[in-house]
């Protein structure tokens, strides 16, 4: 039977109390993964707590040089925020991320929580150096995205915690891009994806972040590739990566081995033409 129970706390405090007292309760934050699990019978009679209406988790603002958005902000809401123009890769991803109804329901924090290896936005947050605040009735801690994922569906989030806020640093002159390989354009799970960001210092790459998705159990950054491209022009970087393979990648399917590096190179190239545009003061 496709039945579940649903609680609907009115405040963050109430929600955290529920999670403290009943660790089996699952926060429902968009439901774009969880409801599929219910429909497919993978979740039997779950107890859900809907957090989409919590006002504390719905804010989007620029604070201390970062773009901050609450854990219940949807993709549509984020897409409507003018400040995302600082991150061209976000616009690129949102235009092809699932479909408008899914973007109306789905949330970046929710997808972080379910930790699909192919989640497009998880990769982007990684490439932009984001961090997240985890709150519980006992307190709050901040975790960089690079330390958030542990495995397929596994993260450092405790059952008593909620993702309260995600912060992305606003960096002047940052280039970024997101590319994915799917079987069709849009509405398809990524087979291999890559998100990159870097600064261009007299035409040379500085502070690169190269994230790769749908290859390992968790989205990851390739330190070896980042090292290779640092100090090179994007053209040189592309050439330097030709034929290389990221040491951190461990694909289970043989063909992913062929396409990982071409996707990274494509992201580096696309990022060159995509500099963040924001009212820097």
């Amino acid at each position, binding site marked *: *039977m*496709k039945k579940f129970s649903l609680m609907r706390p009115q405040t963050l405090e109430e929600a955290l109390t529920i999670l403290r007292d009943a660790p089996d309760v699952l926060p429902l934050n968009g439901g774009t993964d969880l409801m599929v699990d219910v429909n497919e019978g993978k979740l039997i009679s779950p107890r859900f707590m809907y957090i989409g209406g919590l006002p504390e988790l719905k804010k989007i603002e620029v604070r201390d040089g970062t773009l901050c958005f609450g854990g219940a902000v949807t993709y549509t809401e984020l897409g409507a925020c003018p400040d995302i123009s600082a991150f061209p890769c976000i616009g690129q991803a949102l235009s092809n991320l699932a479909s408008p109804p899914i973007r109306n329901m789905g949330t970046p924090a929710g997808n972080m929580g379910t930790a699909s290896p192919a989640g497009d936005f998880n990769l982007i947050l990684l490439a932009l150096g984001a961090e997240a605040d985890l709150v519980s009735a006992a307190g709050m801690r901040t975790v960089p995205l690079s330390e958030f994922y542990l495995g397929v569906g596994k993260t450092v989030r405790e059952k008593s915690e909620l993702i309260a806020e995600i912060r992305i640093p606003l960096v002047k002159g940052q280039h970024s891009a997101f590319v994915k390989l799917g*079987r*069709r354009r849009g*509405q398809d799970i990524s087979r291999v994806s890559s998100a990159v960001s870097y600064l261009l210092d007299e035409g040379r790459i500085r502070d690169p972040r190269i994230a790769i998705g749908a290859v390992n159990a968790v989205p990851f950054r390739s330190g070896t590739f980042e090292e290779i491209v640092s100090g090179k022009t994007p053209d040189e970087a592309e050439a330097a990566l030709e034929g290389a393979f990221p040491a951190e990648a461990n694909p289970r399917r043989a063909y992913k081995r062929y*396409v990982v590096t071409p996707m990274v190179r*494509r992201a580096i190239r696309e990022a060159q033409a995509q500099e963040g545009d924001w009212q820097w003061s």
Partner: protein
Amino acid sequence: MEKSRKEKYIGRRMPRRDALVKAQGRAKYTADYRTADMLWGKAVFSGMAHARILRVDAAKAEALPGVVCVMTAKDLPAAKKYGIFCADKPVIAENMILYEGDPIAFIAAETKEIAEEAAALIEAEYEALPVVEDPREALRDDVPPIHENHPVTGNAKVMAEVTLDRGDVDAAFAEADIILEDDFETPQIEHVYLEPDCCIARWVDDTDVLEIVAPQQAVYSTLRALAPVFGLPESRVRFISPYVGGGFGGKEDSCCDLAVIAGLLAMKTRRKVYSEFTAEEVFRYTGKRHGSYVHHRMAATKDGRVIGLDIDIILDKGAYQSMSGLTGGPHAVAQRTVLYAAGPYSVENVRIRSRAVFTNHPYGAAMRGFGAPQIHFAGESQMNELAHRLNMDPVAIRKLNMITPERPTSFGQVLTEENGLGLEECMDKVKAELDKPFMPKHPVRPSQRRGMGLAAYIYGTGMPYKSEGAMCVVHVNRDASVEVGISTTEMGQGAQTVMAQIAAEALGVPVETVNVPLPDTFLSPDSGPTVASRSTTFVGNAILDACRKLLAGFTEAVAHGVGCSPEEVTYAKGVFAAPDGQEIPLRRAIYMAATQAIPQSAVGIWYPPVDIGFGPKGGNSMHTYSFGCQGIDLLLDVETGEIELLRSVLACDIGHALNPQLVEGQMEGGAVMGLGYALTEGVEYKKGVVSNDSMKDYVILGFKDLPQMTSIIVEAANCMGPFGAKGVGEPPLVATAPAVREAIRNASDGVKLNRIPFTPERVITGIYKAKEGGQTS
């Protein structure tokens, strides 16, 4: 075809008459006829693809409050099996599960929720059996047969075997300059019609009739297949098909799978019962396009003549007969793969064998193209390979080999210009269009390479059986409005519109006054199934016949009324003219007929005036054939295997376009479906259980994937068709996959991919294998 036609409605772009009501949401589909008093009818499945049933216990389900009735195999009132061609599919499985869609019980409950709860209470034990997924493996001696006691084939592994053996194949291969030999594979695919199958059944107590409303492509086929299951004469079962949300061949069979559930439960409970499959259940339980494995040998001369073909085709039949064909006839899909094995070319020496082999997959059903897409993928790929080998132009080599009045089909049928031979024009126009300069609107990545390719096709209109013909009743009311009684389904193709055009043209009445009701076996005569690209031609001709008979009667009535001979009366634009100058409007003539015992209804009938008969040595198969050519222009990323479609150019010789707007709709829809077949689609299984059972996992193309599409209508009139028409429903997708293959081959410096779909994974793997010097597949 001369273009200065005088017709008022024929050849005109007329919007579909169902377009407005569908756009406004007023059109009613089966599920819209649900009422609050209905029971929910549900079939229970085992979740296994091959098993022996040891025990089914429904006691707990029956005891659940709200459950009205539970049926297992022992409760069936009459025939225990059914099928369109032969009754081999169990209504409820008794001993064996042969595929995932074999139900073990039916439940009728007051609500859907109770029915689902009851389904979970059915207790069953099974002995799991090894699942046979590959028909080639199924043929191995050490693999036991799927059927132990099939009503037609007993314990044979092959459901249907069709052969064609003409000329001296061995001699042709011995003297050939070039022999091409290769293997080709196509997957089972799902129809992905937007309206999942559903059914409403009720027992009409005051007339002792079982009434079934369901989306169907062939109400009379359903009737004939299922009346024995209900234990009723066909006259006491009423099948109604409202608007149908897409069928593509699938709703010849799938409606039966639903109608047995709702129908039997309605008979048993004497209540109205609604039953439906979810979209996921449609993926898992209903029929699929046959998967195919083709071993293809082609013998040719160095100047490009194909002189011999030696082809072995193995079809994934799935668990039940459906539309594969019966050995001895009707041969159905297996036969079509043989008929079209030589493509639109004349080849004298052919040895072709096609076998439909049982597996534990969903049954191989009719699907748009009916065997032609599978065999054209192999045949047209080989034709392109031959052109490469000889460094010949792909159009030139096809012209050298194509069917002409002097050069008959591989099965010996002579086609003349009167049958409509438009292939050459199709190919020339596609090539000219592809040759036009075209640049993508976005920057092309350095790793993207351009490639173009084309392929041609042949496709018959109608079915190659002696029983293939159509019947209709056209009735004229006193106000000269017209009812056209046919059993042709409206499933989005525009049948109602074109039939109304034909009747209005023939009778000289305004098209708005012609009504074409939806199929109902109590009211519509049997005009045959809505399949085989046959309706416009066969049913259209039957309507013309009925209209001629009506006008002959009215002419006689007028002649008698004014006192002249019928030959002296003329009729045009709704008015009869007598030799004395009197003008008698149609309404008046109808009244005159009514006073003279002359009928205002006429039965129209049409059978093609061709001796149809296909045997191992050949024979005439269809009265006419559609031809066409598909061109593809794409970008291939040689680093990732991604394909970006730029242009699809499709030319179809359809005889005469009675309504070009509808024809273009069929062509565009067909091309999109063909592109999905080529690039993304394919049912995937885990132990015979469908694993990509949703629109999320089973990938069809979306609008963002589509190229610029050009549809070119070519009109080589069919002298036997109504106003020259031939079929257009299925042909547009027949040649898409080999055209895509050729474009990829040209973009990749010769990578040969012989297995669809061409996913990025398959393409990049093929590119790497070719780099490493290995054989690609």
